[in-house]
């Protein structure tokens, strides 16, 4: 099986779409009210640090994904164990995302359609995308990305008449605490979620600069979220934002110019579903790789199909209701994600630094000694 490669530009675009993903459904935290933009900036600053760690890991061992790396750094048993935990995380978040999408579609329009049908046929799309492979996903995203960006910016610009920036005042009325709490939430979801890309890192072009990929993606994705948050607040105020189940979608409902250009929320819904679809695909891709590593199967593509459908089917049982879903995403997930987004990457990073230093020493001492498992990453 030949190695799949996505180039630097595709990687950036994929990551930006990934970041845009679920923030556009459930929105960003609702504690900080009109100060959400401060929370976003703080979260971006925090995310740039942890992303530097992710990028460093990829940079140290280019062409390898997390699972090969775990094997190499921690040995068979411990490596498998960490991989198992991490794969569980991928599975769980994938479940959540599929549920988010199906719940969103069900609430906004298809209220009489059984949820399982929506979920399973989202699964069909994801499974098909995964069978086509990461290259196709990369190309697909780079076609759709400009469309998403242009539509979003157009939506924001045409509504400029309806903005009332007075709604952003007063700044820091409730103090810094709710802002920090929201910043933590945004940091965990979606910025630090890019930890998933460690699972795909094997497909990055070797000469691409991971630091650049992460930083540019963070910048564009962060600015996009900033635009979305400010738009929501300036259009309908913090009160409505915290009241609504899906704030960014509702904003698009309000936007109109005169009588002829209105009811454009469906465009927005399409954007949301597209972005979330990309996100689920990335998660499922990593999940399939993790499973194929755990089960020692080379062909992750064939394995991915039943995994995706299993996830989609199981997502029906994930939450009792949508309210719990949104609360879980906003309140529980940030804490739940700490071990996967911060602790495991930090461990891997430290181990990787030591290993890289040792490798350098041994190669300089003994040219003929090859580091073990360097070929493992070749199969993407």
């Amino acid at each position, binding site marked *: 099986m030949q190695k799949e490669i996505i180039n630097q530009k595709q990687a950036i675009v994929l990551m930006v779409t990934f970041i845009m993903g679920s923030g556009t459904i459930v929105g960003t935290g609702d504690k900080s009210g009109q100060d959400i933009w401060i929370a976003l900036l703080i979260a971006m600053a925090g995310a740039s640090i942890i992303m530097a760690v992710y990028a460093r890991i990829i940079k140290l061992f280019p062409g390898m994904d997390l699972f090969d790396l775990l094997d190499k750094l921690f040995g068979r048993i411990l490596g498998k164990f960490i991989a198992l935990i991490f794969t569980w995380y991928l599975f*769980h978040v994938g479940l959540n995302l599929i549920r988010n999408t199906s719940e969103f579609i069900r609430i906004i329009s298809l209220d009489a359609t059984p949820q399982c*049908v929506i979920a399973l046929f989202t699964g069909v799309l994801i499974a098909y995308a995964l069978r086509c492979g990461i290259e196709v996903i990369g190309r697909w995203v780079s076609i759709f990305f400009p469309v998403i960006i242009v539509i979003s910016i157009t939506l924001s610009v045409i509504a400029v008449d309806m903005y009332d920036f007075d709604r952003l005042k007063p700044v820091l009325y409730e103090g810094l605490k709710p802002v920090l709490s929201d910043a933590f939430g945004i940091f965990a979801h979606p910025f630090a979620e890019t930890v998933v890309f460690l699972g795909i890192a094997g497909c990055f072009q070797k000469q691409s600069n991971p630091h650049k990929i992460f930083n540019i993606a963070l910048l564009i994705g962060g600015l996009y979220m900033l635009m979305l948050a400010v738009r929501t607040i300036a259009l309908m105020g913090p009160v409505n934002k915290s009241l609504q189940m899906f704030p960014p979608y509702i904003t698009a409902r309000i936007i109109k110019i005169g009588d002829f250009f209105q009811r454009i929320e469906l465009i927005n819904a399409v954007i949301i579903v597209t972005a979330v679809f990309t996100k689920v695909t990335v998660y499922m891709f990593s999940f399939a790789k993790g499973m194929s590593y755990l089960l020692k*199967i080379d062909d992750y593509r064939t394995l991915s199909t039943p995994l995706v*459908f299993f996830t989609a*089917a199981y997502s*029906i*049982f994930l939450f009792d209701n949508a309210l719990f879903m949104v609360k879980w995403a906003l309140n*529980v997930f940030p804490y739940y994600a700490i071990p996967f987004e911060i602790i495991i990457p930090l461990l891997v990073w430290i181990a990787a630094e030591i290993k890289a230093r040792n490798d350098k020493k041994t190669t300089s001492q003994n040219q003929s000694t090859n580091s073990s498992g360097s070929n493992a990453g070749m199969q993407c």
Partner: protein
Amino acid sequence: MMFISTIIISAALILIDLVPLYKQQEWKIFFIYSFFLLFIVVLGLLADFNVEIPSPSKPTKDLVSLIFGLKLE
């Protein structure tokens, strides 16, 4: 409804994937694949009979509130 959907999907997957795998005699992936397919159909059946299946969201919520001492609704 879910049961029928899962049956349709499984039938399609058997035709697309399982038959070739059987012919190529890739037994390991064949069995894992069929195991998951069976699981999907069982899930579909359970969903139609309104059986509750343990979901990871409640335990994770409890775990998080235990570890961090948070009061989450």
